[in-house]
């Protein structure tokens, strides 16, 4: 019998000659195994952490939520007064504040981000394009407390002067700051969406006599729409979750704002401002965790939606 070319041993009767070689656990096999395990753990840890955080937040507020909280009244209650006797936990001012500020932020961020993405993706060339991309990445890396300081010391006097209002820390200020913070990441994602549009479409449209603008407007943007929507959603998620900069720029007033010149408070800022003072395990403490849960659910939904938009559409295309 001829020796197997792989193991040098004669092949045994039942198995094919290479079966043993496949089963052989040499150093290559072990390093491959180790690498796979580490990568697997890394991947799993993402899901694990999400689940753990969710459980933590949920359990901290669970007892209060189940026994002493009327969810409907909480969501619509216009007064958030946790420290008076008896305390009132109406989250409407926080929800409204968050919504107002996020809305203003998007009004500012969407044109900025899309403008930047279109310019970089469709018009800028070579070196200029690279520099702009680096610039945007650097903007995205500015710590949020710096943005807070800008709101506090730069935007505030500007708003007071330009609009002639008393209070410079308000929805407008926080919205501008958040808009500027969310724009870079939105621009990056939007630019990816534009880049994913095949160049042959642009070429085809140009060959039919379209100007560069017509190409962008009639071909590129419609085709990139799912990705652009995802960019907006992720921007909203970003604006929703931001804390310290809003706390500094919004004036943190616990009332439903009636115009963009009113101060306002957000869910995140309230949690950050009050959690340290609330007695651990008390009603106020638990209530803040309920707010956290609300935030978690909202941002989670937004992110899922964004993901679904990008992935679902790509599959069907």
């Amino acid at each position, binding site marked *: 019998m001829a020796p197997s070319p792989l193991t040098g041993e004669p092949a045994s009767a039942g198995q094919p000659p290479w079966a043993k070689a496949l089963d052989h656990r040499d150093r290559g096999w072990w390093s491959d195994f180790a690498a796979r395990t580490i990568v697997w753990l890394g991947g799993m840890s993402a899901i694990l952490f999400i689940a753990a955080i969710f459980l933590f937040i949920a359990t901290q507020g669970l007892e209060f939520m189940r026994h002493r909280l009327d969810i409907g009244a909480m969501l619509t209650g216009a007064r958030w007064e946790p420290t008076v006797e008896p305390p009132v936990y109406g989250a409407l001012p926080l929800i409204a504040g968050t919504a107002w500020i996020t809305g203003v932020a998007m009004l500012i961020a969407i044109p900025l981000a899309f403008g930047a993405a279109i310019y970089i993706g469709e018009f800028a*060339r*070579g070196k200029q394009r690279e520099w702009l991309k680096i610039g945007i990445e650097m903007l995205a890396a500015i710590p949020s407390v710096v943005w807070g300081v800008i709101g506090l010391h730069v935007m505030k006097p500007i708003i007071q002067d330009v609009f002639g209002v008393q209070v410079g820390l308000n929805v407008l200020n926080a919205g501008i700051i958040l808009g500027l913070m969310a724009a870079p990441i939105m621009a990056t994602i939007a630019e990816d969406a534009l880049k994913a549009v095949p160049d*042959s*479409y*642009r*070429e*085809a*449209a*140009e*060959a*039919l*006599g*379209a*100007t560069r603008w*017509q190409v962008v407007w*009639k*071909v590129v943007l*419609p*085709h990139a729409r799912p990705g652009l929507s995802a960019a907006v959603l992720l921007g909203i998620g970003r604006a929703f979750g931001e804390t310290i900069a809003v706390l500094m720029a919004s004036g943190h007033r616990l009332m439903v704002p009636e115009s963009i010149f009113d101060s306002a408070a957000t869910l995140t800022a309230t949690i950050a401002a009050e959690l340290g003072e609330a007695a651990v395990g008390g009603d106020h403490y638990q209530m803040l965790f309920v707010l956290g849960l609300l935030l978690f659910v909202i941002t989670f939904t937004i992110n899922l939606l964004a993901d679904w938009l990008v992935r679902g559409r790509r599959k069907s*295309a």
Partner: protein
Amino acid sequence: MALHSRTTILSLPANATPAIEIVDLSLWYGKFQALHDVDLVIRSGIVTAMIGPSGCGKSTLLRSCNRINERLGYVTTTGTIKVLGHNIYDEEASRMQVRRQVGMVFQRPNPLPLSIRDNVLFGHRLHAVRRSSRADEEGMVEQALREVLLWDRVKDRLDRKATALSLEEQQKLCIARLLPTKPSVLLMDEPCSALDPEATSAVEDLIWDLRGNYSILIVTHNMAQARRASDECVFMLMGHVVEHTATERMFVAPKKQETSDYIEGRFG
């Protein structure tokens, strides 16, 4: 002078305005010179085939004729190209107007990710000052699709995505969408190379049918195709035009040694 004449031009006298007149054209991609002092006259109303080994500059020359080459920022062109007597590289010439006069069909069918109808109307709508009435648009769509023999196959699904059509249908659609702006010249860069043999002959037949109404300049790698479906033939080599004669003469009695070497398959 009318920009595009629709008479049957096959029997026109030789002094009729040529469809394309290329004078002393050189082109560089960055520092690399891809075309060297090309002089070429493409007659009106016939099919002219361009052949030559890979990399000799056929696509480059074709893409100069509607200035689509300029999409690349690093292309420099010298010389002139006249389309029906107008220099398209003139300072005043508008690239958009040129491309309306000179349609282009690409190697890979590239319908836009829109409906069949919107594809056909795309070029027209770009240039129309006002949006045409629905009835006018429908008429235009039907006429263009009939001209490429696609109407009966797609008339019931004009609102479907064009990208769902078969490759053959896509390529025919890509020809159809050039027609509503009434171009005089059609440039085609290996329009059949992505198609199977049956689709190839269908599209070839179509191109042959369009001859007369349009002046067609077509790049092909396929000797047999050039031979059976063109009136004149241009042979290029390393950025130069080596020979340009009537097709039957080129394949029977080429003037240049390089041409006969290429045709007999000795290189390329």
